[in-house]
Each structure stands twice: as C-alpha cells, then as structure tokens.
C-alpha cells in the first residue's frame, strides 16, 4: 500500500482545484470501496481528498416535483428519507439491499456510482486485467466469470458494476450533477458510465478530476410504485447476481408507461430500453413481460459459466412486472 496524503475540503471549488494539483489524487467518500482497493494495491493514489464535509449532504425537493440528492448523503440517510421512501421506493429498497448497516452508514451517494467491479481478476494485482492494466489481457473470459456480464461486454472486459443504488436510479431517469473544472454539468445516469469497449479502464464519460456533486430524480409519478428486487447467493451481504428496478403504469389493461433497469448484467446499470419499448401499449400479461425481457436479451452474449443469468434476469423481470401489475402467474 502506497503512502498517501489526506486532505479535507469544505467547498466544491477547493476540492476540484486540489485534485488538479496532483497527477494521482482521488476523492474520498465513505471509502468503503476505495480504501479496500488501496489495501489490495489496485488503487494507489498519492492523495485522498475527503469530500464528505462538502455542503452536499442534503436531500432537497426541486421545482419540478423531483429531488436533488447531495453527493455526500450517506446511504443510510438516503434509504431513511421520507420523500425517497414515498416517491421513489425502489431507491430506498436498492440501498437497503446492499452491503451492511455499518457500510451504509459510511457509504455516500456519489461514491456508490463510482463503485468499481468486483471481478476477481481486477482485485488481484498478481494477475492481468485490462481494466487495471490496459493491454494486459482479460483472464475472466476463459476463467471465473459466473457473476460477470452478459450484456454490453467486450472481448477486452466482461466486468459488472456491483451497485444496487445505481440500478434504481437509472430506472427512474436520474441525472448526475458533476463539477468539471469551473463548470457544472448535468449528465443523465444512462450516459454517465461507459461500456468497456476497447478501453475498459475508462469507466465514466466525465472528465478526469470531475466531482459528483449530486444526483437528481425528476418528478415522476410512476416512480411512487417502483420496486427493486435483488437476487444474490446468500440472503444478505452479497452482491447481486441479478437485480431489477421497475415501475409500471397501467391504463385500461394496457401498459401505459414503464421503467425497467437491470443490475449485475453489465458494466453499467442497464436501462432496459428495448424491453420498455416492447412493453409500452401491450396488455398487462405474463406473455408481454416475457416478450419484453426477451427483446432486451436478444443482445445477450453469455459465456459458459454465466449463461444461467439470462434465464435468471428474464425470470426475475417477469416476476417483478407481474407483482407490480397484480398479474398472477
């Protein structure tokens, strides 16, 4: 583990300016992922800039009927927030489905979006990994990949994003607010994280040194009945092997509108736009739900040990959509 400097900052401008002074600094939120990776030698920053004291700890209602979640809001506070619980229940459920009470007390909203993959090769510096050391190779494709990507992967990387929260956020049209140098920018979460392509080391679309200042959710009536469902190998304290956030609005027996996002299937929280498009206007029925899932899964490229995830995500999608619409199987 490399020796590193540690600095607290109290305003966004100083945070961004301080990061720019170093070739190798990182923002430190709860540290629940970054510090682990530093212990493993995967991350070797020379400077940590603690951003948990920035004035980004509030959840405020916005003019459009939505909310703005400060980047430093702790996961526990986010899950307990009455507005979140009432208007965006999938968000609270996703947070509570992750980690443990102790970790949620530390972990931040912004940090959650920056979580790195749990791929066993990425976290072991004695092995090659294109994400960690570009060009070194990806042993996962022919090795252990039972919980790696079935969608959006490339020959260079089949990592998955482990975040639960991001799945709920991306389903509900979240926008990430970032500070890049002197300017502020809003990026839809669907565009915030990158698929690996031939540069799996690049994980976001924002500039290096950008600071997440918050995440906003629009006023979205459909979200009030949203739900998050997570499948994992043990009953708690495990990353998803498949997860889904969804919301459905029904009118006259037809799907008027819907939101569907998947977790643990790709390097990004996977907004299932093809499934949504397929489902809109269709009768509320198991067949419609299955057809929607299948439409999204046409692009799936499963490998030997993760092929089960195709059936799994399909099944859990049909199940949650049925639950949300009161259709019995």
């Amino acid at each position, binding site marked *: *583990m490399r020796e590193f400097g540690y600095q607290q900052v109290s305003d966004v401008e100083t945070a961004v300016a301080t990061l720019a002074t170093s070739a190798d600094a990182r923002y430190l939120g709860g540290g629940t992922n970054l510090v682990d990776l530093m212990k493993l030698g995967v991350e070797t920053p020379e400077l940590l800039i603690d951003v948990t004291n920035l004035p980004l700890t509030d959840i405020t209602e916005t003019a459009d009927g939505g909310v703005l979640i400060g980047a430093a809001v702790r996961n526990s506070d986010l899950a307990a927030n009455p507005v979140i619980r009432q208007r965006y229940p999938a968000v609270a459920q996703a947070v509570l489905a992750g980690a443990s009470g102790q970790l949620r007390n530390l972990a931040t909203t912004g940090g959650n979006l920056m979580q790195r993959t749990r791929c066993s090769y990425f976290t072991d510096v004695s092995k090659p990994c294109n994400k960690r050391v570009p060009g070194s190779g990806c*042993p996962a494709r022919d090795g252990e990949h039972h919980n790696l990507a079935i969608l959006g992967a490339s020959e260079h990387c089949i990592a998955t994003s482990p975040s639960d929260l991001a799945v709920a956020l991306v389903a509900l049209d979240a926008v990430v607010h970032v500070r890049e140098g002197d300017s502020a920018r809003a990026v839809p979460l669907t565009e915030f994280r990158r698929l690996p392509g031939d540069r799996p080391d690049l994980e976001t679309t924002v500039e290096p040194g950008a600071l997440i200042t918050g995440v906003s959710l629009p006023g979205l009536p459909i979200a009030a009945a949203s739900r998050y469902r997570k499948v994992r190998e043990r009953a708690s304290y495990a990353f998803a*092997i498949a997860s889904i956030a969804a919301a459905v609005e029904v009118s006259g027996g037809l799907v008027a509108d819907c939101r569907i996002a998947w977790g643990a299937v790709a390097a990004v929280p996977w907004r299932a736009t093809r499934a949504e498009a397929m489902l809109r206007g269709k009768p509320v029925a198991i067949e419609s739900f299955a057809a929607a899932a299948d439409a999204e899964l046409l692009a799936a490229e499963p490998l030997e040990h993760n092929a089960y995830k195709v059936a*799994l995500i399909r*099944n859990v999608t049909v199940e949650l959509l049925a639950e949300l619409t009161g259709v019995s199987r």
Partner: protein
Amino acid sequence: MTSTLDPATTRTPLMGQGINRIDAIAKVTGEARYSGEYPLDGMIYGWVVQAPIAKGRISDIRPATTLSMPGVLAVLDYRNAPRLSDAGDGELLLLQGDRVYYRGEAVAVVLAQSLEQARAGADALDVSYLAESHDVLFRADHPDMYTPELVNPNFPSASNVGDVDAALAAAEVVIDQVYATPAEHNNPMEPHATTAHWDGDTLLVFDSNQGASSVQMSLCRLFDLPRSAVQVKSEHVGGGFGAKGSARPPVVLASMAARLLGRPVRVTLTRQQMFAMVGYRTPTIQQVRLGSDRSGRLQALDHLAYSQTSKILEFAEQTAVLSRMMYATPNLRTAHRLLPLDVPTPRWMRAPGEAPGSFALESAMDELAQACNVDPVELRIRNEPDLEPDSGRPFSSRNLVACLREGARRFGWDDRDRRPAIRQDGRWLMGSGMASSTYPARNAPSTCQVQARSDGTFEVRITASDIGTGARTALTQIAADALQVELDRVELRIGDSDFGPAMIAGGSMGTASWSWAVVKACRDLLGQLDAHSGAVPAGGLLARADTKDDVAAQADVTRHAFGAQFVEVAVDIRTGEVRVPRMIGVFAAGHIVNARTARSQLIGGMIMGLGMALLEESLMDLRFGDYLNHDLAGYHVASNADVRSIEVSWIDEQDDQTNPSGIKGIGEIGIVGTAAAIANAVWHATGRRQRTLPIRPDRVIS
C-alpha cells in the same frame, strides 16, 4: 485435615449447566490477548512474499531495492534461512530451496520496523521464476490417481466385507450415483498470527493454533531443539476449524526470521494469504452404490471417494470411512483414491471425512428411500446395526434411532407428504428433508497438573486450547466438580506448552481428552488432601496426571456420537434461491458439559453445514493455479439472514466407556449430515436431485 472440602454439603454438579463463558468479559472488552497482539521490545514485522507461479523454481532474488527501503532490515529467503529438519510435514520445510510447489507458497519474508514498511518492501521484492506447466485440475479419471495406504488420521484406505458386486447384481433395488463436493476454506475469524522470540537457543512463540503441544513438537523437530527449549503460548485463539490443527507456515517463518535477526518477529497473515497457506477441505468426487430389498433393507453398500493432495505432503481425507459404521449391511466396501496436484495441501476442516462423506451417503439413502417408497427416517431405522458393520465390534453407545425419533417428533415429520414438488407458498416451493449425523468419540493422551493453594483455591494447568468453543469454561466446570468446589475457587490455565503434552482442540477430542487428565489429577489431589493433615502448606500441594496408559487400556469397542437433522427449505426455481426457514438437530453425544456453549457448538456446526450446502466453494483458477475467490466477499459463509429458526437438543446419554466424565466431543458432529438434509429437502421441494455442492442458483434455475 482441615479440608477445603465439605463432603457433607449437597452440591449441584456444575457439569451440564449453561454457565457463561468465564473469559467472556475479557473477550468483549479486548482484554483477552491474541497471538498477534503481544508487544515485545524491539519487535520486527514480517510480511510473507508468495510465489505467483504454481510450479517451477526461483531463478533469482534481488533484494537490493527492498533492502534500501525505509525500515527494512532483511529479506529472509531460501539462501539465508536457517536449515530445518523434516518434521514430517513438507508444508513446513519453508525457504529450504528454490522449488515452488504451489501458487501462494511462501518464498520470502520481508522484515521491517513496521508492518507497513514490511509490506511495502514485500511488494517491491524482485524475484524471478522459471515457471513450469502446472496441473491443478481435480478429476476422477486422472492417470495419476492412486490408492493411499492410509487415510486420515490412520485408517486403512480400503475395507471389504462380503461380496459387494454379487450383492449389487442380485439386489432388488440399486442406487448408483456420483456426488461431488468442492474445495472449501476454513476461514476462522482470527487469521494466523505468530510472535516469535529467541533468547539464546530458547524459543518462545505466541501462536494462534489449536494445540500448543503439537506446535511445540513441530518446532522442536524443525529446529532440532529439546522440548525444554521451546515454549508455545496460545492463550486465546479466534477460531480454527482445523486450519490451526498443527503448526502452519507463520510460526515457522516467524521463528526463522527471529533467529536470523536476533530480535522478536511477528508474522501475521491476511485473509487472502490464508487461502493458499494454511489448508482447506479437499474437493471430493464420490460414487455411492446401495443395493437393497424392496423394503429398503441394505444388502450392499459401496462407497468410493476421490480427493486431492499436494506434491509435498500426502493428505488423504477419510471421506468414505463413515460408511463403515453407519448402516447394517452384509456386504460393505469402501475405498479411497488420491490425486497429487500442484496445489497447496488440503488439511483438516471441520469433520474431515464425515462432512463430505455424509453428503454422499445420506443423499444416497434418501434416494433409496424414494426408490423403495419408504419414509427416510424409517429407512434408517430399518438399517440400524447391532454391531459396527465393518468390524463387528460393539458400540460403546449408539443412540441414532433415539435421535431420529426425537428429531422427527420435534419437527413434526410424521405428517409429511412424501411426494416431491407439490407444496407452494407464493414463489417458493417448499420441502423438508433429513439426514443422520455421526462423529467419532475418541480420546488421546494428555497431561495435567492441579495445585491446591494454601488460600483454599486450586490452579489447574493443562495445554488445552480454547478456540472459541468454550473449552476453558467447560474444563473449569469439570475441575470444580472433580474437586467438589465452586467455580470461583478454580483457576484454569491453558494454552501454554510448558504445562506438558496434551491433545489438540481437534477431532472433537479436546474436551474429552483433557477432561480425563483433569479429573485424574483432581482425584489424585483429593487423595493427597485426604492424607494430608493440617492446612495446605504455603507452597501448595501438587498432583500430576498423564492419561497415556488409561487411554491405551480402553476396551476395544467403537465409540461415536450420533445425531439426526431435519430441515425445511424454500426454493424459488425461477431465481435459484434456496432458503432454509427451519433446522432442527437432535444429538446423542454423551454427557454435555455446558448447555450454553454446547448449543453454540452444535448450531455453529449446523450453520457451517448450511454454508456447505448452499454457499461455500473455493474456485480453482486453472490458468493461474490458485483459489480465486480468496476473501470473504468472494467466499460466502452463511450470514445471519441465512439462518432462520434453528433448534438443537440432545438426549440424555450415559456412556461409561468413553472417559471418566462420559464425554463425547461435539465440535464437529453439527456439520455432519446438514448438507445432505438440505439437498434432500431441495429434492422434496422441487423433484430434482442436487448431487453437487454447493446448491448454487445456476444449479437450481429451470
């Protein structure tokens, strides 16, 4: 005499009571000191450098960069390490040459003034290797598979009674199936840690282990020292599950490093390092063939087990041995095959042999019950033997049937509909299953000293080890009962090899073996006190006991604990999730010493069995040759949320042929049968057999 004892007092025995752990406050307040926590003046920290190849040799070590780093004092490697003598364990002949036998093997230790400096030095150490192609794939049809002479600890590898092939050919019903269990890692909470210090030619180590005597003996042999020159202290140990059952690399590396530097050295392992360096449970492939008549009465039982070992030490797990004593059959054959690979040596992990072996046998029995349309409990009762089927020896006591009946009663088993895949509760298919449990009840020689002090208190000294089991409390109860005094008048001291040779906390033999020596010494002391007139002298009175001859003189009977486990499962076949809402275990394990700690041991075993059934699996990376999921995020043990209703009880069992206290060990039996009970319940829920562990979502999804 002015006895400290008042024989007229009516005294309720402490044995059997659920007394709180006497070290509980020390542990929760942090006062209890573990092996990596002893501060010694001038102490140096060692960081282990591990081989990144699975087979080959070290071509060069260039320590210059590391040695120039802040705080780094030395690099210990095969070129400067003290020469070691063979202690019968190839895993301990560390840094003796340039060969690498498995990935993760220790190739150097960087020694520095702080842990961080040692680690940084280790990261920077420049080692070159000549890698050779390795073979780490465990498979039954490997040409190098051979028959070991003995299996752990010293059973014949094969057994044969009657004519199994003829009986199978003639049987009305035959079950012939292959079962597989994965490699698993013990993962005690406290990683291995040693603090070593030489004073001239005398070695003192604080070491986290399951038996200070055993580690002392290994160090004596490795360093050619007399027993008087080596002291091993292990006052508190944070779990072992077999991974600390004998000396493991850290104690040897720390001792060598301390020798090299002439200063105290501490070596601690990370969780990741433990996945290569301290043992694990071998993967197994097992073929079980059962032949019976239509009513389920066994005519033949054939159990063939394959497992792996390393190239530097033969460890042959006794996977099929439990089939030699479990069920009555006139034709009975067991055999073991072993495959040496370029892997770390598998070692003991909670119920080695019985845990994986019972998964195969008890699953096959469930398949036989299904084939004969006989209730699984009734099937086992029908096959209850009078004598040990393999040897013809009598059992010291055998209460399997009582456990089966009591477990069935508590579970409500008799109302069960035997048909599979017919119960649904929302998205869950519901089922129930059961299996028998068993574990040997052995004793090993131990020594003990008991001292009567002039203030009316007693000091008991024994090289026992409390690895979290509650042994310290149990032995104090036993001593107080033997001395007929209250608990607070007995001070028990354990975990120090200076107290004399004693059994390890292993093989479920610790408390049984130690209790014998404690009781023997206490009785001797009572005799001395009776013969002594006047007050106990200022120097006290001392009694010593050694149970070597007593153990050797035990009658030739076979001794086992038994149990029965019943579980309810909920299976979502669309997601592959398996949950276990209810578990019941009933055990017949002799005299239970402490109701509270015994309950913890038994439910702990069953919870580990739940993990074995559904979660635990060490994944071998064929390209790199190491266990890949080497942390507690990747290697799943059961979490609190996985454990719902769990209930254990025991039947009142008197067995006067085990040891003077009538104790059978309980450290391991809880994990035996659990995985089969859960797999059998998953069949009952879904109609599909699960013959490969763990029962992962991808194996369940349809």
